């Protein structure tokens, strides 16, 4: 098996992590750094130290908001945002489950909706999300859902894109390259 750092370096966006000088500009720029178990700079240090289990079972990457501030400011051309998404994929593939965040469930509902319809069907997506996380929480969202429904922004029947088969092929090809869903 490849070492953890090699595994990350081989993914798109992970190329430069060996060049990290641990300056901390990523963590300093991160709006959610203090919520994470390990801030971005430490995640890179831990990847290089081969701490696969600690990194992949942490909540850090799932908290990333994709604001790209770290990527813009990094003096070494490292892309912590891309690395966060890579780590999400790896955690998912390798069966790590994170407590305290529902982001993976949200991703799964989103992707399943895309796979089924070629685009997001909000009602279906949110239904699946709440059913797999906390069905009671859906009650809180009911007033907003109702408003959206009345303004024709939340159709009951999903709309599908033309050429859904072509899209399926694209998704399949992507899964082959990336090695995950």
């Amino acid at each position, binding site marked *: 098996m490849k070492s953890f750092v090699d595994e990350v370096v081989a993914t798109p966006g992970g190329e430069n992590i060996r060049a990290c*000088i*641990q*300056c*901390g*500009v*990523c*963590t*300093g*720029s*991160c709006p959610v*750094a*203090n919520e994470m178990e*390990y*801030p971005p*700079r*430490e995640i890179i240090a831990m990847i290089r130290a081969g701490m696969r289990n600690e990194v992949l079972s942490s909540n850090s990457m799932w908290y990333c908001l994709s604001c790209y*501030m770290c990527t813009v*400011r990094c*003096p*070494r*051309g490292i892309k912590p945002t891309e690395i966060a998404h890579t780590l999400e994929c790896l955690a998912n593939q390798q069966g790590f489950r994170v407590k305290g965040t529902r982001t993976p469930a949200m991703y799964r509902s989103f992707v399943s909706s895309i796979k089924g319809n070629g685009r997001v069907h909000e009602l279906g997506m949110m239904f699946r999300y709440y059913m797999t996380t906390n069905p009671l929480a859906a009650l809180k969202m009911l007033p907003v859902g109702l408003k959206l429904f009345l303004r024709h922004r939340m159709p009951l029947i999903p709309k599908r894109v033309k050429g859904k088969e072509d899209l399926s092929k694209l998704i399949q090809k992507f899964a082959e390259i990336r090695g995950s869903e």
Partner: protein
Amino acid sequence: MEPRIGVYVCHCGSNIASTVNVEEVARFAQDLDSVVVSRDYKFMCSDPGQELIKKDIRELGLNRVVVASCSPTMHETTFRRACHEVGVNQYLFEMANIREHCSWVTEDKQEATEKAKALVSAAVRRVYYHQPLQSREVTVNADTLVVGGGIAGIQAALKIADSEHKVYLVEKEPSIGGHMAQLDKTFPTLDCSACILTPKMTMVGSHPYIELMTYSEVEEVSGYIGNFKVKIKKRARYVDEDKCTGCGLCQTKCPSKVDSEFDAGIGKRKAIYTPFPQAVPNIPVIDKEHCIYFLKGKCRLCEKICEAKAIDFEQEDQIIEVEVGAIILATGFNVFDPTPIYQYGYKRFDNVITSLEFERMVNSAGPTDGEIVLKDGSHPESIGIIHCVGSRDEKYHEYCSRVCCMYSMKLAHLIKEHTAAEVYEFYIDIRSFGKGYEEFYNRVLNEGAIFIRGRPAEITNIAEKPEEEGNLIIQFEDTLIGRQRRLPVDMIILSVALEPQPDAEAVARLFNISRSADGFFLERHPKLDPVATMTDGIFVAGCCQSPKDIPDTVAQASAAAAEALAMISKGRVEIEAATAVINESICSGCQTCKLVCPFGAISFEEEKEVCRVNEALCKGCGACVSGCPSDAITLNHFTNEQIVAQMEGMLV
């Protein structure tokens, strides 16, 4: 004389022998045409190695030699000399590079051995056609040109002039002194910069062997090592240097106020000015762009007040031509402008300033008389110093500017000395590598400066908590704690990078030298020839070559002076015989060669209507050979016959 070739395959310890089967290569060479003897040896460059060649020349009557070893830039001279010493012309030697071109870059032993054989075979075929050539000597003009009057230029000029050889020192500003004159104190000894620099400046000003040309720039350079011709433009000062007494009265009366370059923009000067009180020469210049007379046609106050009648509005730029044997470039550096780093707020926030601006502020001769003040005139209670601004960042400069850690700590010391303010140093790594530098780091730590490891993410004035109100807030990760933090401070100093001068490219072209990827002038060899350039007779010193501190700059300037003096003292230089020759009976006078020659070595003879090569200028690049439509040019030591033979040898 029938060629009798000796081949010597070097092991270079294990550098070559661990990848190339050297014994097999030597056996292979034994069977090549005209090869009399072929040997392999542990270190050919060693004395016994060279002796091996000499012995074979004497005993076996060799008249051609091939050494298969390292790059010719390493040891060609060594083996040429060995041949020469026993009566074989040095140009009857050829080197096959089986280290850099073969063993170091090939993994498979079999492949490497085959490649080494091909390279040796090529060299043997080539050397068969070599012609004996004679190196020539030219005399060296004993005068030297030094460009740039900072500490590097001053040091180099003084060293040469002290040996009673003439130096022309050209400086584009109105005074010599450079950046060092702007600094307050110098690390790690805390000498006052002006106190150690101005005596040297005065010596330059009064030295009988130095001709100082300030407010001047080099316009044109021609010629070659030992014999350069240089045109210097002396810009009009509008002040007669012979009449001016330097009393300074004109500067007090001039009504036009401008940002002072010397004070890094935080102080003012007049339109007629000397940059600072100890300027050398102590003769003002009129800045035409801001002088009211030049702008509006009225004023001439300075002229009225000047008792010596030294003001001369009619003065014009002068072109001065000088001839020199060597040139030392000491054109210095530029400070990085941090405005593009938006998140640091330079020019957006009043109290974010650069290190050079702070240097002028803390200097007792500066615009605030050495008082550390905020824009509103009050005194800061806390100051943050941010390292590596514009350095170690692929978006600006990838390199480390070498001096920022140390000068930042010096500034921390000065703040502690002048005020009771808290000082925070934001660093990534502390680089205190010089003599007494680590001790200085220790001293500043003990003086109470707080060191925080982390490159700050941003500077803002938007408070998130009441205690942040009215301050600048630095947001950063304290990497040694692993937490994101915010720190309110009153003033922030950006320790900016040193970068190449904005005109470095033009200057490099003017003197026909190269620059490295970072934009600084390129030395001939980073370790073994650090002040020479690829153009013979032109040397570099100081920060134009790379960022460096004052001790290194002075050492390098002395080295450049020694190089120039070595040339002057010998009085002549040897010039490579591998130059182009034009066959006049074939030349049609089309002058294509003259057009393509990058060294200006070809001239057209009107009378005979042919072109001719100046051998002293020719570098043997071969551009003219391939450019000539009539095939009239031959490059000695790179003839068609030799090159074709080399290629055939390679393909065997």
